[in-house]
């Protein structure tokens, strides 16, 4: 597996989080308690007594101004909702799909490699058989036999190294589950803005999955420090047995 996939994933995740952060900030600025300055400005614009007495014409101006402000807020909310939907549907879904595709591809590749290694081992067995047919009784061990034994050991070691596929697959599945969860949360956040209120149509593809599928994976799965981690297990087993 190339290192490009995880780095792309990280980039996309970071971009998504920035987008969410920006959207939430926008929401706060538009109506939250964090931006009293804007609220104060609106309050002054809308209700502060003018220097001169307001006539019907002046009241009309105030209402038009207020209406314009409200429309602006609604427009910003629409944009925030749109950005959240985009984040949920595009920014998260694409890396999620890519991860699943990579995981599937590594499993297929691992199967192909194991098939090849088993065929190669069978060929070494055939070479052994052929060498046995042509050897004379009492003949000293030949160099070919030594090489065949070494080759068989190498092939067997390669089979063992294929465990990396299971471990990376668990890591990818976990990352994919995290993205699914993020997608669901973003979609729900987008729905905080009721489409009926703002007159926004919800695209069919924006519907989030019903729930994140529980995955049977170890997020800490690793190929590193095998001996040290086995030593920890051995110590616990020994302590329990004694």
């Amino acid at each position, binding site marked *: 597996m190339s290192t490009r996939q995880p780095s792309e994933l990280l980039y996309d995740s970071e971009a998504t989080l920035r987008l969410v952060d920006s959207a939430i900030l926008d929401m706060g600025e538009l109506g939250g308690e964090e931006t009293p300055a804007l609220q104060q400005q609106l309050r002054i614009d809308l209700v502060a007594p003018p220097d001169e007495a307001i006539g019907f014409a002046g009241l009309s101006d105030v209402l038009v101004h207020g209406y314009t402000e409200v429309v602006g807020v609604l427009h910003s909310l629409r944009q925030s909702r749109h950005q959240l939907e985009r984040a949920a549907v595009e920014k998260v879904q694409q890396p999620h799909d890519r991860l699943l595709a990579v995981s599937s591809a590594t*499993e297929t590749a*691992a*199967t192909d490699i*194991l098939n090849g290694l*088993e065929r190669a081992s069978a060929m070494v067995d055939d070479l052994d058989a052929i060498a046995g047919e042509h050897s004379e009784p009492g003949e000293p061990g030949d160099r070919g036999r030594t090489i065949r034994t070494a080759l068989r050991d190498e092939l*067997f070691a390669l*089979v*063992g*190294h*294929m*465990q*990396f*596929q*299971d*471990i990376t*697959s*668990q890591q990818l599945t976990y990352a994919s589950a995290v993205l699914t969860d993020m997608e669901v949360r973003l979609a729900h956040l987008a729905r905080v803005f009721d489409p009926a209120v703002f007159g926004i149509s919800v695209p069919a593809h924006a519907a989030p999955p019903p729930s994140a599928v529980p995955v*049977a*994976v*170890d997020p*800490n*799965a*690793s*190929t590193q420090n*095998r001996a040290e*981690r*086995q030593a*920890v*297990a051995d110590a*616990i*087993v020994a302590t*329990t*047995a004694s």
Partner: protein
Amino acid sequence: MKILVVDDSATMRRILVNSLQRIGYGECVEASDGREAVEKLDASVQFIITDWNMPNMSGLELTRVLRAHPEWKAIPILMVSTRSVKEDIMTAIQAGVNNYIVKPFTPQVLKEKIDAVISGAVAAA
């Protein structure tokens, strides 16, 4: 000795079976999760090697089910898992696994642990 190999990863099952054959245990039966393992258990199975993280029924659940079953409560169980946190290993041992291997494993470690479990079972008998 007939060994039941339980792992949801086809790659891992294949590697385990290959390794077992290499160290002299040629008779294996495979299951992709704990539930299938229970279905495939019969009197001919003498040893179980199981993963922890699996769908439907995990290796931990499988261990607990077997340890609570009168017929299977004494069958040797070796867990082979990526989980290497102390608390997890303690949990597995307390559930009833006889020994524990952290993935990725080597055939030498696999043989060593199988031998240890068998000798422990013999000593306990």
